[in-house]
């Protein structure tokens, strides 16, 4: 049914067949133009005529889909065109909306002409220019990487011309607007993948949703700048109606395409489509473009970057460079990556670049801790050493390029730079080799780059807009703000998901010192990391953490680095101050940005962070609380994190407790049993079985000597019952009992102590030894001691007891908290059941005297303790949690299950 066929040579066109061909023989359309019609019974003639007027070297089928239009003339006109032109097909269906009409046309076209290569959607009131289909099809065919071609918007009626010429950006398409008009040419690959318009969407934006389906399937679009698409705009239209109900439609779209709107997805697209950082390598001046420096990213030479920079100044909607520029040696980026702080450093530097002119970055070596410090002008250590990297916003850089004077910016060579400069100092276990690579100065690189830009031939440009269509899209350099708005987060941590899609678990800690809470978190992270989960540490109260964990336990270490209150809030719950999301101190946007991309959050007793976890949960993140202890106030009132957890119970998918007792408490307080999970504690650090056996053998050989060796290890504070210990020690000294007391720990200055405990113990001949943190030192201390003393007023399930028991050190401990779940009286330790301080001291002395007098009892308790703890390990204890994680993320669990079978069980 060849009807109209025209070939074009360079300067002329030739109409091959203008009238309706009689036979239709040889009509083999390459393209179908689908024209849905509803109530545009007259204007449709313009659409059909423009389709008939196409000058193409291939056949085109024109399918008019009458979507049950109530106007009789639609049928008459449609049928008349089909009668007059044999490449025109008129079909009528019951009214089902625009989506159903388009789908009907697509299916009709493919049924009739299975070899069609593409479909063009032309709404009945719009038009296309004669060369449009040929030009656009050629464009589509010449670029196999694209699957649909969309036009600029040239409106007639109410005239408006908008340039959509920017490189296609999925981030923009998701977060800004529907940047692809329905009047696009779509490759058949899209339809072969089963993609159709959503027929439930009848109020508009069905085309937007269609493109989102395409994106979900990995298809991509591109703009053809000379499309020839004419969009009729009148004062009122379906599109205008759609904008009035946009919020509801968008809610539907967001719900349907949750994954597309997820932080992971959006940051990935930002990385690929509008990278946030341009890192100019000191020395080579190669420019890396990325959001996540660890992910695969593009690199360009400086000259290309300069081209893009000036193009972006002229037409920022269509051309762009990243909003932040960084001068750094790749080795230094790698050094930060190795210790797990790279993303966090970029996150901070981005924020600071918006507040200050420049951010100077310095790396310093520290084997025992990781720390990020922000140093402002005027501080003693400010710019004390040469920066290893610089960062600034591209706007600041532009101001420097425009400023012909070198005086201001040149001052960054000195220690008192004129630009408002803030310094980020990163301390950590860097290798000396990493830090040595400072021959090529980042400062020189910055200033040299500036010189190159200033000398550029483009500098004489007027920056006038050359594209006559108005710029509709936001400047590419502001796309990162669209990301922020979409996620309600600012800044957004620039980390994209790893390819293996391992679930990412964030452990939130108030501080990262040597406490039991953090030790449990580290132990859990270690097990989960070995199973293949991606674990991340977030320290919200301080910007430093002690390196108590192994390097491999966490993929990253992140600090909020803000004056973040770890307790309190404007609202009250059961005698506790709590914070809500709307409160000033909640820092919702910042924390959501920091936690961006996590699948699971385990809150390890950070009270105020609960204010933002609700929002995370709504975004699909699984929220777990891990509660360790019910504290006591000065007056003895039960208080602390368990109560906070009750206030926020709704947001928690799971509450982990260190004891069965705590789980019972929660249950009794109204938390459903299904939300509670008791994770038994185990020693916080690992020992090989052989090491343990050796120590136990030595203990057995040694037996109990003339004197009973006791050990107290912990804080010298009221919670630990230090007064009780002191009273017992006084009795022991007074009675001259053969009992040695070794005291290891630290004073707590604000503990309302009555004088220095160090001095008071010294007066009775007991020297306070400084706190020890390393696993070896702890093991040595436990191995030397016969008895571990713990006189706490309240406790959770102290790790110290388990660590002591493991090497046969017998715990003699107050029966508080969940201690009774760790120690069975006179089986693997001794429990002190008295409440009164004096009574506890006397019970302690009596217990020690019993052991002193009965070496067999000590040996029995020691052996049993070691045996009991030998069966405890974190991998085993975490099994219920791991099961739950696998249930939550079944699609990712295959590899984890494999690892689990290998990893479970104690380290041999």
């Amino acid at each position, binding site marked *: 049914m060849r009807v109209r066929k025209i070939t074009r040579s360079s300067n002329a066109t030739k109409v091959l067949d203008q009238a309706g061909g009689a036979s239709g023989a040889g009509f083999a359309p390459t393209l179908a133009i689908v024209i849905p019609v509803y109530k545009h019974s007259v204007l449709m003639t313009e659409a059909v005529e423009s389709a008939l007027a196409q000058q193409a070297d291939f056949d085109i089928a024109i399918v008019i889909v009458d979507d049950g239009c109530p106007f009789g003339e639609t049928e008459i006109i449609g049928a008349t065109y089909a009668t*007059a032109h044999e490449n025109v097909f008129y079909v009528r269906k019951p009214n089902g909306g625009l989506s159903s009409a388009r789908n009907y046309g697509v299916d009709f076209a493919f049924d009739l002409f299975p070899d069609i290569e593409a479909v063009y959607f032309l709404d009945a009131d719009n038009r296309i220019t004669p060369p449009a289909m040929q030009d656009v099809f050629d464009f589509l065919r010449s670029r196999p990487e694209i699957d649909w071609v969309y036009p600029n918007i040239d409106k007639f009626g109410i005239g408006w011309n908008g340039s959509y010429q920017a490189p296609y950006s999925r981030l923009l398409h998701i977060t800004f607007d529907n940047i692809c008009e329905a009047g696009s040419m779509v490759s058949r690959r899209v339809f072969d993948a089963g993609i159709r318009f959503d027929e439930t969407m009848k109020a508009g934006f069905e085309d937007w949703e269609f493109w989102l389906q395409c994106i979900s399937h990995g298809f991509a679009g591109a703009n053809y700048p000379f499309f020839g698409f004419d969009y009729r705009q009148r004062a009122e239209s379906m599109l205008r109606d759609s904008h009035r109900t946009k919020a509801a439609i968008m809610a539907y779209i967001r719900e349907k395409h949750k994954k597309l709107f997820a932080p992971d997805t959006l940051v990935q697209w930002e990385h690929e489509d509008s990278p946030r950082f341009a890192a100019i390598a000191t020395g080579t001046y190669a420019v890396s473009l990325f959001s996540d420096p660890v992910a695969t990213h593009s690199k360009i030479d400086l000259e290309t970057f300069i081209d893009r920079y000036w193009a972006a100044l002229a037409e920022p909607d269509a051309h762009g460079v990243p909003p932040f520029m960084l001068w750094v040696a790749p080795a230094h980026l790698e050094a930060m990556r190795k210790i797990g702080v790279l993303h966090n450093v970029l996150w901070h530097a981005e924020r600071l670049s918006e507040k200050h002119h420049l951010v100077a970055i310095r790396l310093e070596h520290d084997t025992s801790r990781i720390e990020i410090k922000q140093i402002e002008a005027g501080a003693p250590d400010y710019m004390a050493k040469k920066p290893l990297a610089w960062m600034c916003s591209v706007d600041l850089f532009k101001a420097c390029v425009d400023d012909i004077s070198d005086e201001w910016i040149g001052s960054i060579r000195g220690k008192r730079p004129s630009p408002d400069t803030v310094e980020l100092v990163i301390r950590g276990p860097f290798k000396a080799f990493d830090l040595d690579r400072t021959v090529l100065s980042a400062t020189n690189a910055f200033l040299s780059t500036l010189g190159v830009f200033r000398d550029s031939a483009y500098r004489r*440009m007027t920056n006038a807009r050359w594209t006559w269509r108005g710029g509709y899209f936001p400047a590419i350099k502001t796309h990162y703000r669209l990301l922020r708005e979409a996620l309600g987060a600012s800044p957004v941590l620039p980390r994209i998901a790893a390819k293996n899609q391992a679930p990412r678990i964030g452990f939130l800690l108030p501080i990262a010192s040597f406490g039991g809470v953090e030790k449990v978190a580290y132990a859990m992270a270690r097990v989960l990391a070995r199973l293949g989960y991606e674990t991340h540490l977030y320290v919200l109260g301080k910007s430093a953490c002690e390196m108590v964990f192994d390097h491999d336990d966490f993929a990253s270490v992140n600090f909020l680095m803000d004056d973040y209150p770890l307790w309190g809030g404007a609202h009250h719950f059961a005698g506790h101050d709590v914070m809500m999301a709307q409160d000033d101190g909640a820092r919702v946007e910042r924390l959501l940005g920091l936690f961006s991309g996590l699948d699971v959050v385990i809150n390890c007793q950070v009270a105020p962070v609960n204010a933002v976890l609700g929002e995370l949960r709504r975004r699909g993140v699984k929220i777990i609380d891990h509660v360790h202890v019910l504290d006591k106030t000065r007056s003895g009132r039960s208080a602390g994190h368990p109560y906070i957890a009750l206030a926020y119970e709704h947001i928690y998918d799971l509450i982990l407790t260190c004891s069965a007792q705590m789980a019972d408490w929660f249950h009794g307080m109204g938390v459903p049993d299904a939300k509670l999970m008791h994770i038994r504690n185990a020693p916080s650090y690992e020992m090989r079985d052989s090491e343990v056996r050796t120590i136990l053998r030595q203990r057995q050989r040694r037996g109990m000597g003339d004197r009973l060796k006791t050990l107290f290890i912990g804080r010298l504070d009221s919670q630990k019952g230090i007064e009780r210990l002191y009273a017992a020690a006084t009795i022991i000294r007074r009675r001259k009992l053969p009992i040695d007391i070794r005291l290891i720990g630290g004073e707590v200055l604000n503990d309302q102590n009555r004088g220095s405990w160090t001095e008071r113990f010294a007066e009775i001949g007991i020297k306070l030894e400084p706190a020890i943190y390393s696993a070896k030192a702890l093991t040595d201390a436990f191995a030397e001691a016969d008895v571990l003393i713990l006189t706490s007023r309240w406790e959770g399930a102290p790790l110290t007891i388990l660590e002591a028991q493991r090497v046969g050190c017998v715990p003699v401990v107050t029966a508080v908290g969940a201690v009774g779940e760790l120690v069975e009286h006179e089986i693997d330790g001794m429990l002190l059941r008295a409440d009164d301080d004096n009574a506890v001291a006397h019970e302690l002395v009596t217990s020690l005297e019993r052991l002193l007098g009965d070496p067999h009892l000590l040996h029995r308790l020691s052996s049993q303790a070691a045996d009991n703890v030998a069966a405890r390990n974190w991998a085993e204890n975490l099994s219920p949690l791991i099961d739950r994680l696998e249930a939550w993320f079944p699609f990712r669990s295959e590899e984890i299950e494999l690892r689990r079978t290998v990893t479970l069980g104690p380290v041999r």
Partner: protein
Amino acid sequence: MITAAATRSQEITPDLHVLERAQRSYVRKPAILFSGRLSDSVKALAGDTYDLLKIKRVADDHLLVRDQAGQERRLAEAPLQLAGIVAFDQNDRELVDRTTDWLQKRRNTGIPVAHQLAAEDGVGFATAILANAQGLAQKNAVLTTSLFRQLAEARQANEELQNRFAALEAFIDRHGMQPFELAFINPPVDDDTEPNVLVTASDGRISQILPVASVGVSAIALHVAKAAPRSDAMLNVALNSVEDGRLIETWSVPVADIEAGWMTLSLKSTIAGLRRTLRLVVSVDGHRLDLPTLSLGNAQPLDLFRLQDPDLQQSISSSSLALQVYVGLPGVVPPHRSSFSARAAQDNAAPSLREVSLPQDVLVQTAQVHLDEDSSGFDGVTYLDEECIVSCHPPAFGTTIAKIAGGCPVGTLRLSANLLVAHEKAKDVEFALIVSRDESHVVHLLSGTADPAAGEGFSGWTRVPAKQPRFASLYLEAAARESGDLYLATRMVEPGNHDFAWARFFNVHALVQG
């Protein structure tokens, strides 16, 4: 006695004759022409829907047929709706062919293909008639859709004309605005090292996407760094709109005529319609060794706008052509020294609008006329030759009037001038422009006691504060058929103090048709 019936009969008899004659010679009912014998089955199929007319004879001026009633009918016209031509007798084929020829001489369309059928072939007969009907239906559909097309085109043309008229009205409402404006300039860069792109381009062809939308574009200027006065080549320039592939304008300019500086290429009419992207293609016919050097602008970071090879559509330079784009009213040519009109315009020589400054030899004729009694013989008119300024100092009371003889050239539609009170201490002054053939009428026009007559124009009074330039125009109802005089007038807004009232008319110019 004559009955009423008889009267009626007598009255209508002549009409009946006419009607019968018409019915016999003119067939309105759908007709089937046939030859040979008509079988009963065919008759039954035709029913009463069709007139079955047996062909008897074909003559030059008529077709003789016999209808089913046995009456012979002499047809001078082809049947209005001819459903079929059928030969039931093979021997009548020649008669049928002649009938077809006869019909075709009288009708361009609607003559069906003749069919040869057996006398009893009812099915064949029905098929033939249906095929003809289908053909007719399709032809009608084609016709109908062509009408749809025309209607759509008319609708689009209406919208376009609406927009054009609205633009024109907007222009007219903006009294005194220039009829053309420089919409974009990419200034030339003085760089001797730049190669001559016309020489280096493959096939001597270059193209440049323009940075303005098509609508309103009236002229394009390219900058020539170096002329080639001895060249015998021809520079061809084509302007296309990219989205619809339309060739909008072409220029062919002898290279020898091109001077260094801006070379303005004016369109024969300002581009209207929907906004499109414009592409300029420059090529050379003839010897390419000695060609003018087209200037380039600054380095261009936008690849799309770099100078391109039109065939490969790839950049051939990191810059754009130095260019100016003018928008404005149709036919108005920017006043440039080196201007070239579109090729079609040269051929057609259609009348156009030009903005022309009043020549110095006219301005120098400026003289004061003492028409206003209040001015008390105050003498305030001076022509400042070097600056082409008419100084028209107002009196403390009354009006100063200057006359520029011949200041309204033939074809003038509008006269305009810039106005300035050139001293900051002056009080506000009012300015006016008048065209009149009757000097005595000028005062009446100025005072508002008379309206402009045919051939006259009055700008109205324009209040000009000190040191704040203003603009004034007068409009004539039709283009001036003959040269007329222009009067310039000033007066104090608040009579009494005319100190420092240095009132000046400058840049006096006319919009001239033809």
